[in-house]
Every structure is written in C-alpha cells, then in structure tokens.
C-alpha cells in the first residue's frame, strides 16, 4: 500500500521528470515538425537559390559561412518561440494546471523542467542547422572552421535569452498563441526595428539581445564599425557590430533576468 508521507523526491528529480514528459510533448506535437520543415526548407534554399541563379558561392569559406549563419538567429527565435510559447500559458489556458499544481510539485521545478525541455528541443534544431553548415563547408571548401563552434556557442546563449523572454511572456499572458506570437514579433520585428532606429541616431544598441545575437556571424567573419559620410551632406550612416564581451554579458543578463522573473511570477500566479 503506498504511503504518501514516505514518498520523497528532490527538486532535481522532479525537474528531470517534467523535462522528460515535456520532451514527449514536443515529439508528439506538430510544432517540432513545423520547425524542422522550416529548417529543412531554408537549408535547401541556401544551396538551391545560388545554383538556380547560376551564382557562384563566395570565394572565401568565412563569407559563405557568415551568409549561411544569417538564418541561424532567426531559427533560434522561431524554435524558441515555438517550443516555449505555450509552456506556462497552456497550463492556465487549457486548465491542466488544476491537476498539475494540486500535486506536491514546486512550480519552480515545473518551470525549470519545461525550460530544459524547450532548450533541448530548440538547441537540437539549431545544432542540426550548424551541422549542415559544417558539412557544407567541408563539401564546398574542404575546410573546417573552428569559429563555427564558437558561433554555435553564441547561438545557444542567444537561445537561452530567447527562451527566457518567451517564458516570461508565457507566464504573463493567458493564451499560448498570444505568448508565442508576442515573443516572435518582439524578437523578429520590434527589437530589430528599435535597433535600427537607435543606430540611425549614431548610438550603438549594444543592450538589445537581438543586436548582440549578431555575434554568431561576427565571430566567423569579423567586421568593423563604420560611418559612411557623404560630402556636402550632413547625412551619416552608422554601421555597428556587436563586440565581445559586452554581447555575451547582455545575452546572459537577458536570460537570467527574464527566467528569474518568470519563476517569481509563476509562483505568484493564481489558477482561478
């Protein structure tokens, strides 16, 4: 006969259990397949378009790699929003929280378990994309760029910041779709637009995580900040590139702060 008093489980074990069942969720739902299809399509296009237009690949492997990795950050945003958007909101929206929260499970374990599952799912997708890039570099240029590994590390850090922000939206909003879309548009449109506007004023938007995320291409094919001036015109066009270690710290701060906020808010959020 079971004895409720004797059952003991530490937080890590609970996080591991939640992670396992969240991964099962990602495997059984269409979102994983949607992300994989998008990844496959973009990957194919990266090779098919130059071939179709009879346009040769760049001479330098680093230039090609930087171009290929332009999509990596978008993939991070898509997979982050897809895997994390409904993580918390769905428990309230679909009322599954009535069952889950009335068990002796710390909400912090639930959030972290879901975070780890979303991280594993999204990083596998991003990792797959990088793997294709590394194989392509070998195939086209017969070279291995160690910078690709560093770039992947930055992509993973950016993924953490994306997941943190998406978890925060998922905690604040009541609907999964709303949280997913808000995360996607914030990271894909709003922050880049803000970044552009700030750049136009001659200031570097170093504090925006999407700006910092450009480190994924910057480490492969480094560029210098430039100011384009036009003789006889007061117009100046500024081009900034993220720098080490500021970008790394910015992404880390986004990740820690948003996830911590999410943990605090989930604990306080009522299941009415």
């Amino acid at each position, binding site marked *: *006969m*079971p*004895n*409720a*008093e004797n*059952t*003991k*489980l530490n937080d890590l*074990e*609970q996080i591991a*259990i*939640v992670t396992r*069942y969240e991964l*099962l*969720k990602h495997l*059984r*739902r269409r979102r994983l397949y949607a992300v994989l299809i998008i990844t496959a399509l973009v990957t194919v296009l990266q090779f098919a378009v130059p071939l179709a237009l009879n346009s040769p690949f760049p001479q330098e492997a680093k230039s090609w790699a930087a171009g290929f990795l332009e999509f990596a950050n978008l993939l991070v945003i898509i997979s982050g929003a897809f895997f994390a958007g409904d993580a918390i909101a769905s428990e309230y929206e*679909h*009322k*599954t*929280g*009535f*069952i*889950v*929260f*009335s*068990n*002796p*499970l*710390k909400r912090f374990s639930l959030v972290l378990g879901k975070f780890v599952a979303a991280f594993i799912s999204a990083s596998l997708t991003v990792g797959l994309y990088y793997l294709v890039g590394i194989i392509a570099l070998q195939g086209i240029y017969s070279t291995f760029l160690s910078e690709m590994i560093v770039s992947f590390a930055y992509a993973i850090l950016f993924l953490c910041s994306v997941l943190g922000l998406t978890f925060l939206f998922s905690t604040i909003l009541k609907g999964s779709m709303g949280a997913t879309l808000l995360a996607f548009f914030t990271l894909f449109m709003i922050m880049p637009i803000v970044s552009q506007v700030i750049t136009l004023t001659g200031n570097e938007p170093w504090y925006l995580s999407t700006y910092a995320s450009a480190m994924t291409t910057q480490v492969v094919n480094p560029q210098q900040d430039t100011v384009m001036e036009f003789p006889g015109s007061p117009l100046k066009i500024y081009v900034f590139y993220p720098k080490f270690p500021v970008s790394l710290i910015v992404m880390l701060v986004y990740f820690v702060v948003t996830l911590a906020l999410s943990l605090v808010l989930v604990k306080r959020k*009522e*299941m*009415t």
Partner: protein
Amino acid sequence: MAAIVAEGLTKYYGKLLALDNLNLKIEKGHCVGFLGPNGAGKSTTIKILCNLIRPTSGKAYINNHDATKESTSALKNVGALVETPEFYNYLTPLEVLEYLGKLRGMPKNELKHQIHQVLETVRLSEWKKTKIGKFSRGMKQRLGIAQSILHDPPILIWDEPALGLDPRGMFEIREIIKATVKKGKTVFLASHMLHEVQETCDSVALIDKGKLLTYDRIENLEKVFKIRKIDVELLTPIEPKCLSKIEKLKNVRTLLATEKNLTIGFEGSDADQAELLETLVKDIGVRMISFKPSLEALEGIYLQLVKEGN
C-alpha cells in the same frame, strides 16, 4: 488532530468577496459534504486548500501544514480533483498517471500496481493506451478521480466528482467515495448533488455568498430543522380517506402521495418514526413493500438555509 482547517479564510477577486471569514475544521476520518449554490465559494475554498490561489487573509491547513506556505508538504497527503479536470491531450491515461505518480516519488513497482488498480476502479483500463484528446468529459472525470486516488492519500478533496458522468458513472463514483470513507480516509466533497452528499457524507458544511451557514452532522441538522422524511413504497394505491387519516396523525407535517409512493414529512425521533410506520401498517392498513429515509430532507435544509441567507 484535524485533517483540514480553515481559519478566517477570506478571498477577494478584485472587489468581489468570494469567501468571507470562513472557519471550518474537518476531523480525520470524516466525510464532509460541502454544499452551496453556484458562486457560493466552494471552489474558492478548495483552490486555496490546493494552493491554486492564495487567500486575501486567513489560513488554511492540511495535516497541520500551511496550505499556502508549505504547500508541498500539505499536498503530499492529498488527492485532489478540482473543477472539470483537463489533461495533456497528447498523453494516454497510463502516461498521465505515470507522470503524476513519478512526480510524487512513487516507486516504480508500486506505481505500476497502483495505476492498474485505479484504472480498474474507474473503469478506464480498456482506454489506458488511448490519447486523452479523444476522451469524453465523463472519461476525463474518471481519470481525474483515478489520479486523485493513485497514491492512496489519507485526505481526498473532491470538487464535483460526479460532474459530467452518466447515471451509472455517478453510482460508481458514489461507491468509490463510500469505499474511501470506509477505509477511514478524510473526504471533503464539494457538490451540488444533495443525494450524493446525503448518501456518502456524515457531515455537511453549507456555504452561501462566501459565508458558512451551518456545519454539522446530517442527523443533527435534520433534528435542528425538524425535517425528517420517509419514502414509503406501496403494494397497492392508497385510498383518499386513508391519506386524510395519515395527514391527521401526530407529528406528520407534510404528505405527498403518488399512485405507489408516499413521502411523509414529520417531526420526531427514531421512536416516533417506528410508531408512525406501525400505525400506517396496523391501523390504516397501508400495504407497504418498503420504506427508506427520504433524500429530500437535506434538500429541505439546504433550501431553507440558502433562502434565509438571502
């Protein structure tokens, strides 16, 4: 020691007062029905006990553990079913129960055995490998019951456990509740179904507009409210003159007759009931097949108290 305690529980949703200084103590091993109309505060109380919401003021305890501050310890001893249960649609009952059992730290073999047993109890064994997304409301309700008894908890908190079930399902749930009570477990049962409560609970807490109107054993309430009813099943229809005789009997207050049934409301003790039945058979010549306490008694108390409260 009390299993469940509510001390001055008050809950506001914005400006709406949902619970108004609720005090309640449920001793171990008792089955308490928690009755009240819609919006009375039943679900709010249960949600506070299950740490789904926080009280605006007051405290709730389960086995001496603060339900808000020590929720993990408090909920270890509880099997809860709150509102209409919803589960992850992409999982099967087997997987959901495994998940919840593992979260509770149940050992593998014990969990396997318990899953088999509870699925049998709620008659879902046949669908144990079917995705819950395909389940009807009643089937989800059964699974909700199953997860609440999976770890064989000493305290059960059920919010409308028979909601959405067909008559057979309702009967089965009542049997599960009765069996649970027989095992000496504490049951706190919020329900609209007075028959369900009268059949399964020993005490009743009646709440309206967030306030506790009464909390006592059912038989005490019947005495206090002087409402005692019996249903008599007749072999042959009763003649009008006999009905008139019954109405005039000492202690009889109400009489409702159909072709083969009598519902007699009266004031008095068990001895008075015995005397009444004897009179019916011996003096009036009622050909009685059977008799039983009417389930309308609790309904009468309920309606009277809620009406007074309003």
